[in-house]
């Protein structure tokens, strides 16, 4: 089994998580659902930053099992947090190399290729202090890729960006999507982002995975429960443009 397969169950404070999921060996899976549904908690469990009962196998390696719990630094995982969380005492290059130097497998994702893919060349010598939000997330993404991960986790990487920064970074994410040879889990509740980037969609509600892994849903079909009013409007608009009659 080459992909990702896991289940986590347990209480985090008053919240109960009971999530079973599987990811294909390649491609981006969007993890959607209302806020507070446990998406970030699930991601933290996968990264090993939180510890609940369960099991997790990634590319044939057991990260968590009955008597196994790999600490985060022993998991070949790349994480992009909601806020870029660059290390402020290091330059852009220092951030990119921090993980690259500690990667335990040989470099399949090259430094130059990553810089090229994410357009980081003009930033490389700069300090992280005066980067724009979009630039910070691109650096964070590159930094995660250079750890040679077997699984990439992204926790709403665009949600703290303004519209202009989003528009700037999305083409890079689409390029990444085409180039990526590993599975990626992408948390978002923005339908247009999911539409542009995701091959599969998982919907989470109340700590459970509701919909099984499948292709991005057609706009205008049932399954809109988790969406905000603005997202419904955008879906309806997209449906109209595509010549469909909205029935929702």
């Amino acid at each position, binding site marked *: 089994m080459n992909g990702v397969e896991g289940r986590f169950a347990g209480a985090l404070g008053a919240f109960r998580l009971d999530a079973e999921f599987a990811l294909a060996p390649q491609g981006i899976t969007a993890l959607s659902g209302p806020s507070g549904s446990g998406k970030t908690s699930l991601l933290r469990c996968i*990264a*090993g*930053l939180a510890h609940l009962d369960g099991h997790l196998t990634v590319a044939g390696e057991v990260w968590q099992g009955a008597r196994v719990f790999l*600490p*985060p*630094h022993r998991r070949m*995982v*790349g*994480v992009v*947090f909601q806020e870029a*969380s660059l*290390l*402020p*005492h290091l330059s852009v290059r220092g951030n990119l190399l*921090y*993980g690259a130097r*500690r*990667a*335990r497998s040989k470099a399949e994702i090259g430094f130059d290729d990553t810089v090229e893919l994410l357009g980081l060349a003009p930033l490389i010598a700069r300090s992280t*202090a*005066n980067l724009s939000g979009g630039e910070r997330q691109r650096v964070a993404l590159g*930094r*995660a890729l250079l*750890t040679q991960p077997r699984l990439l986790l992204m926790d709403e990487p665009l949600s703290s960006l303004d519209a202009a920064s989003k528009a700037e970074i999305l083409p890079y994410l689409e390029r990444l999507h085409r180039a990526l040879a590993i599975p990626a889990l992408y948390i978002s509740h923005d339908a247009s982002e999911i539409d542009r980037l995701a091959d599969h969609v998982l919907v989470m509600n109340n700590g459970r995975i509701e919909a099984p892994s499948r292709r991005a849903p057609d706009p205008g079909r049932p399954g809109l429960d988790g969406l905000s009013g603005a997202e419904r409007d955008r879906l309806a608009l997209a449906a109209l443009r595509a010549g469909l009659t909205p029935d929702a």
Partner: protein
Amino acid sequence: MSEVVWTTLRLAGLTTVLLLTIATPLAWWLARRRVWWKEIVAAVTTLPIILPPSVLGFYLLIAIAPQSPLMALLHPFGIRTLAFTFEGLVIGSMVYSLPFAVQPIRGAFEAMGRRPMEVAATLRASPLDAFFTVALPLSRRGFVTAAILVFAHTIGEFGVVLMIGGGIPGKTEVISVRIYQLVESLQYGEAHRLAAGVVVFSFLALLGLLLVDRRTDEAVR
């Protein structure tokens, strides 16, 4: 005169280095762990701030006296007592200045939050690796503050060093004790020179502290 200054600087320097080494893991534990008795430990480490130096000096003197159980452990090594020795003075100064080392470092660790260490872990850094390459550099302001405070506070201590050091010239006599003795024997001229030196030094230490604060404020945007 130069002898007493040298003893004082040696005491302050040694105390600063040793105390920062001990205070760092303690501050990390206080900043990170969530156990109910944590604040009891924090209160004990802060106690020297509010205890009268004579109380502290009294207990320290008892602890390093020949009959104490603590010293009994050192008897096999040929050490009978640390009272009225330079080594005893270093230990006393470390206890006396402990809160001035722990508080700024703990504050810096807490201000950093958990995220940088989580980021380092997802970038394959082991906890120890991440501590040295992320936590320490991000908290350097706390360390500089602690070092300046401990150094200056050790130079300024009087009651504790008098009680456990005894003011033996060349061994345990420091500037603050010498000034006291000079004034007692009405040698005001000499006392003036030393006292003015301490004032100037203390001013420079505080100025340095404020400048460090400003500089790191700007560096962290």
